[in-house]
């Protein structure tokens, strides 16, 4: 794809703006959906477009077009969009993040660019064949399934009026396996997702995303959910697995730490910076370079992705900012301005947000619990700006007298974010992250995770 971003920035119509940036993308994607009845969708999509973001008199102007070329781009500058003079004057300054000229290429053995479609399709098809075999043999309780597979390759170009020029070329692959079980009138569902900026070779048996382990984990979980009883209700000790910990960190804490939501009057206040907001065993990181999650070497404002410590041993150290809020809060931007594609202006988002691990073994986490619950694998949930959260787990396990007992189904936990962060009294030595998608008007890929943790008191209920 020809890089048109410099051509745009040289247009005379843009000279009157205080700041200008241009993003151009070309993405090819194969999407495959397979159910127990066979292949349902085989979809090829190509998306080619360019967006321009301009700053004048405190107002951002944003425009995108699909399928750009020099002729069509020259034409858009005659559009009255570029003639609008806002009667609105409010100084808006951007944090100086320097000039970056760089090219980031993720080199993989196999991607959509060099792999035949048959070979790409074979990845989800092999999962389908295994699930069909299991449905007929040891997993007759398996009622239905959905396999979603996406393989894409993206070329991104960024230029701004300060002189930054960045090229990022990378694959993205994702496999989702959703199972539904039915036994004696009881229904159960289980979901597993792997993906990120690795090559297709990661799906091989020896690869990081070997589908076989996903299938066996998912089948076992369905089996256990089907034998599970209703969860206990009330305020009891809760142990969370890394997936539930990640959800707590991302949904309940992370969003509150996004500077635009702080400014909107969330429960975190600027006065709390450098003050204790969590137990001293809590350190929370937002990391841009996990290739199995929200990978952001440069964000969509051309800012270099840097690992940032949001909470250090219980003390709030910073917010996540873009250049605008970085200036407002006097905090260095670390690459959190993200857009799901050229169709959207960048907004403040997380990358891979996790809790740093501690030194408790799993046995130590549960040994002192007389009666509690271990919740495993997030399936849904949300937190409010008021600092309350409610998360559902795919499965729970009763803890009695320090031991894991029978499974429970349809379990959810709810509580107040900061009370919970203060109450976490043990942090596990294990560590895992999950890939996920996060919606804030636009969907982006993120990662979250951490170790298993123990909260002595949390509200548990059904969903």
């Amino acid at each position, binding site marked *: 794809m020809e890089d048109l971003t410099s051509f745009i920035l040289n247009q005379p119509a843009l000279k009157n703006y205080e700041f200008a940036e241009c993003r151009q993308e070309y993405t090819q994607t194969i*999407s495959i959906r397979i159910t127990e009845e066979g292949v349902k969708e085989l979809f090829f*999509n190509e998306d080619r477009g360019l967006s321009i973001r301009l700053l004048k008199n405190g107002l951002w102007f944003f425009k995108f077009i699909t399928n750009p070329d020099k002729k069509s781009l020259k034409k858009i500058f005659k559009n009255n969009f570029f003639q609008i003079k806002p*009667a609105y004057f409010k100084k808006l300054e951007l944090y100086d993040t320097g000039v970056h000229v760089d090219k980031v290429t993720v080199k993989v053995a196999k991607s959509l660019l060099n792999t035949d479609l048959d070979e790409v399709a074979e990845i989800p098809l092999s999962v389908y064949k295994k699930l069909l075999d299991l449905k007929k043999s040891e997993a007759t309780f398996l009622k239905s399934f959905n396999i979603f597979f996406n393989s894409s390759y993206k070329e991104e170009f960024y230029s701004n009026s300060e002189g930054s020029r960045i090229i990022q070329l990378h694959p993205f692959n994702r496999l989702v396996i959703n199972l539904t079980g039915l036994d004696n009138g009881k229904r159960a569902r289980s979901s597993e997702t792997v993906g990120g900026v690795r090559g297709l070779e990661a799906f091989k048996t020896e690869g990081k995303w070997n589908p076989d382990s996903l299938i066996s984990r998912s089948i076992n979980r369905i089996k256990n959910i089907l034998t599970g009883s209703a969860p206990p209700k009330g305020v009891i000790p809760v142990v969370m697995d890394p997936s539930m910990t990640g959800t707590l960190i991302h949904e309940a804490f992370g969003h509150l730490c996004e500077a635009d939501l702080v400014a909107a009057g969330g429960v975190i206040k600027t006065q709390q910076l450098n003050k204790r907001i969590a137990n001293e065993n809590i350190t929370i990181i937002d990391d841009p370079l996990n290739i199995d999650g929200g990978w952001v070497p440069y964000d969509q404002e051309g800012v270099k992705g840097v690992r940032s410590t949001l909470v250090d041993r219980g003390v709030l150290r910073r917010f996540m900012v873009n250049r605008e809020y970085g200036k407002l809060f006097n905090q260095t931007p670390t690459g959190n301005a993200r857009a799901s594609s050229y169709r959207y202006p960048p907004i403040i988002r997380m990358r891979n947000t996790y809790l740093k691990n501690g030194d408790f073994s799993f046995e130590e986490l549960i040994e002192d619990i007389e009666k509690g619950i271990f919740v495993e694998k997030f399936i849904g949930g949300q937190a409010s700006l008021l600092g309350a959260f409610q998360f559902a787990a795919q499965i729970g396990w009763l803890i009695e007298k320090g031991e894991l007992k029978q499974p429970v189904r349809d379990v959810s936990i709810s509580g107040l974010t900061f009370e919970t962060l203060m109450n976490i009294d043990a942090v596990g030595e294990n560590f895992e992250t999950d890939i996920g998608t996060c919606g804030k008007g636009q969907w982006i890929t993120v990662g979250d995770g951490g170790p298993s943790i123990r909260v002595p008191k949390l509200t548990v209920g*059904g969903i």
Partner: protein
Amino acid sequence: MIEKILAKASKLGVECEVYCSKILHTYSSFENNKLAVFEDVLDTGIALRVLYNKKPGYASTCNITPKNLDRLIKHAIKLAKLNEENSFIKFQDKPVRNTITLYSDRITELSSSKILDDSIGLLNRTLEKSEKLNIKPVLSGGVEKFLLEIQIYNTSGFESKYKKTILRKMIYGKSHTPPSLECQVEDYSILSEGKSIDEISDEFVYKLKIGLKPTRKKTLNNKLILSPSALGELLYHTFGQAINGENMARGRSFLSDKIGVQIASEKVSLIDWGNSNNFVSARPFDGEGTSTRKNILIDHGVLKQAIYDIEWGARAGLESTGNAHRGYHTPLNINLNTISIPSTTTGNLIEDISKGYYIETITGAHTSNSVTGDFGVVVIGGYSIIDGEISKPIYGPLFSSSCLNVLNSIVDVAGPEEQVTINQTTVKLSPVMIEF
């Protein structure tokens, strides 16, 4: 160009459907009491579906040049060859019978400057009115207009198109000094300019005023009134998924095998009404060209039918109900066009309650278990009801139940009807009273 694609497909021996989408979007937003972004975008694209020996293949692009479209057909055929035979998929051959008007010149002609000015006006007037009451809210929102043009053609000779306009004005936020509930007012219109900026700011400031100094509640009692927005969210994420004919056929729904069964209180009739321009999400035909229609899904508590696209309708031995949804770069899926529950009385639900709660806004409905219908949501805005009157604002309690439990516990549907849009489905109903 469309004729050329269809001719090329016929020459290659495949059936072909072309879906064309053009969206013009102008949007001026404000965030945290200041103007944020002014957007003006044009999104155009084409999706192809081919049937090669009954094997379907899909491809889409925004690169609409003759050379690239040739390439796209080849891609779709290549994918079809990898696929399995599916004799249930057919392209629409019946002409569209709806003639609803969804397009307004008045909305189309609204200038970019007017959108920008209205957005500034909505922010400033709401701030001024709040200030007079000594309330200092932090506000976000904006004004946006959409112009959509959808066209479908196929090798069975089908061709149809429609244009639609949407104008949306929205404001949300809360006060910190003194504290208030998170409040929101949204106005959608397709044929007129809808509510004025002043009406919207008045409504918002009223909500802000009655939502001041909320108290946190941990539990709810057994008499609740759900606002249209709260019930709409719950129904969309539970019933909306369960009524999908594919999910029902595949046992992924708590409504499987429930057709003809009383699943709700007799007070409840639920209608999917895709061809009525009383709903913002109305359209004359769906993503496959099937005419939309009035689908009575629940009739006085009895489940009458599921919703289908052509494939899943055929699998059930039925016609499509006009519920196929798609974008040009997203595959087909079955979803509700609208959710409507007619009122049962003209009375006021609140005056019959001596002690209960009005639940205005919830969070977490999208985490509901669509297979079982169970949900657990957090109430982020509501009011206690004492002796038939709205009393103090509340937030915080967890509301856990199931879709069927809620539907069966509806005692009455009454009061002012409200329209909200969840994803792309418009919900229009009055508040409902539930009693567990």
